[in-house]
C-alpha cells in the first residue's frame, strides 16, 4: 500500500500501523495501516463487513485491539491512562452514524454538553457558541427542539454541531450520508467540505457511498475484508488497474442503474457483500 502518495507531507495526526482486531474469535482487521495528515479529508471506504466501522472504533479508543499501534495527534493511545485519554478526546470530535444525540436533552443542551463538562465558560457564552455552531450546520433556531423532533438529516447536522463545539483538531464522521436521500446526503458532503474550509480541521470519514467519497476525499483508503486494498487520491483510486478495486468502485454505479434484485437486497439490509463479483 506504500505505493500511493506524493503529497508534501504535513504532520500525521492519525497513524495506525499493523492493527489487528478480533470480535470474539472472529478476525476483523488483518494488520491495517493508515496515516491521516493534518488538514486533509481522508475517506475510509468499504462495504459492510469490510471492517471500516471497527477500524474507526479502534481509532477512537472504544475497542481493545489485539495488536498494532494507534497514534492520535502523535500520542500512542495504548500508553495513555484514562485521564490522558480523556484529555486527548477533547481535541477530537465524532459525529456518529445515527447522531447519538442524548434523547433526554434538547438539541442546544446536546451541543453544549462538551462545554459543560470540559470548560468553565459561563452559560451565556456556551449558548452563543452553540448557536454559532448551529449556524455553521444550517440549524439556526433549532436549539430548543428535542432530538426526536428532528429529521434524519437534521439529526446528523446537529451531531456535527456537537462534534465541532470544542473546535477539535480532528473530526471523525461515521457514515454521514447513510440513511439519507441523495439531496440531503449531498448537502452533508458540502457541509463536510465547508467545515474543512472554514475551520481547517482534519476530517476522517467512514463511508460505503462511493459517490460521496469521491466528492469529498483528498485521499481514500479502500478497505475490504479487514485489509487495506489501496490508499491514494481519488484520481489514483479511479485509475488503479486492480480488478478488486474497480469492482468496489463500480458496484455503486451498477446498483444505481435499475437492478431490482440489488435494490430489494439493499432494502432488506443485505446490502453490499453481494457486490464482489
Amino acid at each position, binding site marked *: 500500500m506504500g505505493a500511493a502518495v506524493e503529497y508534501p507531507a504535513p504532520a500525521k495526526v492519525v497513524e495506525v500501523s499493523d492493527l489487528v482486531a478480533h470480535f470474539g474469535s472472529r478476525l476483523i482487521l488483518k494488520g491495517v495501516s493508515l496515516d491521516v495528515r493534518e488538514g486533509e479529508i481522508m475517506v475510509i471506504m468499504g462495504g459492510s463487513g469490510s471492517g471500516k466501522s471497527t477500524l474507526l472504533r479502534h481509532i*477512537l479508543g472504544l475497542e481493545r485491539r489485539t495488536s498494532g499501534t494507534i497514534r492520535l495527534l502523535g500520542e500512542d493511545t495504548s500508553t495513555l491512562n484514562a485521564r490522558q485519554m480523556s484529555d486527548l478526546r477533547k481535541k477530537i470530535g465524532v459525529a456518529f452514524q445515527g447522531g447519538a444525540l442524548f434523547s433526554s436533552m434538547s438539541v442546544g443542551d446536546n451541543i453544549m454538553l462538551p462545554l459543560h463538562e470540559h470548560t468553565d465558560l459561563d452559560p451565556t457564552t456556551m449558548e452563543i457558541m452553540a448557536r454559532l455552531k448551529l449556524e455553521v450546520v444550517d440549524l439556526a433556531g433549532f436549539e430548543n427542539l428535542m432530538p426526536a423532533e428532528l429529521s434524519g438529516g437534521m439529526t446528523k447536522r446537529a451531531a456535527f454541531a456537537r462534534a465541532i463545539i*470544542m473546535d477539535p483538531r480532528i473530526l471523525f464522521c461515521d457514515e454521514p450520508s447513510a440513511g439519507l436521500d441523495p439531496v440531503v446526503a449531498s448537502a452533508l458532503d458540502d457541509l463536510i467540505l465547508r467545515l474543512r474550509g472554514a475551520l481547517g480541521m482534519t476530517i476522517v470519514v467512514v463511508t460505503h457511498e462511493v459517490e460521496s467519497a469521491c466528492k469529498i476525499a483528498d485521499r481514500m483508503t479502500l478497505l475490504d475484508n479487514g485489509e487495506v486494498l489501496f490508499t491514494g487520491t481519488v484520481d489514483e483510486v479511479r485509475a488503479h488497474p486492480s480488478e478488486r478495486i474497480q469492482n468496489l468502485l463500480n458496484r455503486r454505479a451498477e446498483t444505481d442503474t435499475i437492478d431490482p434484485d440489488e435494490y430489494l437486497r439493499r432494502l432488506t439490509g443485505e446490502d453490499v457483500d453481494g457486490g464482489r463479483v
Partner: protein
Amino acid sequence: MTAGDHGPLTRLAAGVGRRTVAAVEIFGVYGALLGGSLYWLVAGPRQRQPVRLGSVILQMMEIGVRAIPIIATMAATIGVMLAIQGIHTLKLFGAESRVVIGIALSVTREFAPLITGIIIAGRSGSALAARLGTMTINQEIDALDAMGVNPVRFLVAPALFAMIIMVPALTIFSDLVALFAAGVFVGVDLGISMAAYIDQTIEILNTDHVMHGLSKSAIFAVLIALIGVANGASVSGGAEGVGRVTTRAVVQSISAIVVTDMAFAFLVTR
C-alpha cells in the same frame, strides 16, 4: 481428547464452570461500577470532572419524589394487611391487643424496606436498565466516551447516589404510612385510640429496629442501581434487546432484594 470424548459428567462440570466464571464476572462488573462511582465522587472534583449535584437531584426526583404516591398506597395496604392478619391470628389466643407489637416490628424491620425496594426495583431499576440499554444501542454511551466524558461518572454515579439517598428516605416514609394505616384499622377494629396506639408503638420501637430496616434498604438501593446499570449496558439486539434486559433487571433485582433480606436478617440476628 476430542470433543466427542466428553461424557455427560465432563459436560456438566464444564457447564458449572462456565456459569461460575460468568457469575464471578458479573460480580466484577458490579464491583467496578460501585468502585468507579465512589472514585468519581471523591476524585472527580480534583480532575475537574465532578459528579454533578444537579444530575443527582434530578434522579432523586425521578426515583424518589415521583414514587411517593405508589409507595404510600402500597405501604398503607401492607399496614392494614398486617393489622388484619395480626388481629386474626392473635384472636386464637385472645391476645388481639398485642397486635401493635407485631405491626411495629414487622413494618419497620421487614415490610417497609421490602415493599419500598420491590417498588423501586420495578419502577426505577427497570427505567435505569431501559435508559442505559437504549443509550448503548443509540451509541450515546460511545458518544460520551468519545467526547472524554466518563459514562460511569455521568450516568451511573448520579443514579446510584440518588438511589442510596432515596430508598432509605422512602423506607422511612413507608414506615410512617404503614404504621399510621395499621393504627387506623386497629383503632376501628379493636377500639384502641390513635394516641394509645402511637404511644405503644413508640415504646416498642427502638433505634435498632428502625436501623435494621434502613440499613437493608440502603443495600437494596445499591443492588437495584447496579443490577439495572449492568443489565442495561449489556444490551444487544435492538429494541427487543432493551425489553429483554429491562425484564431481566427487574427479576434479578427483586430476587436479589429478597435473598439479601433473608441473609441480612439471619446475620444481624445472630
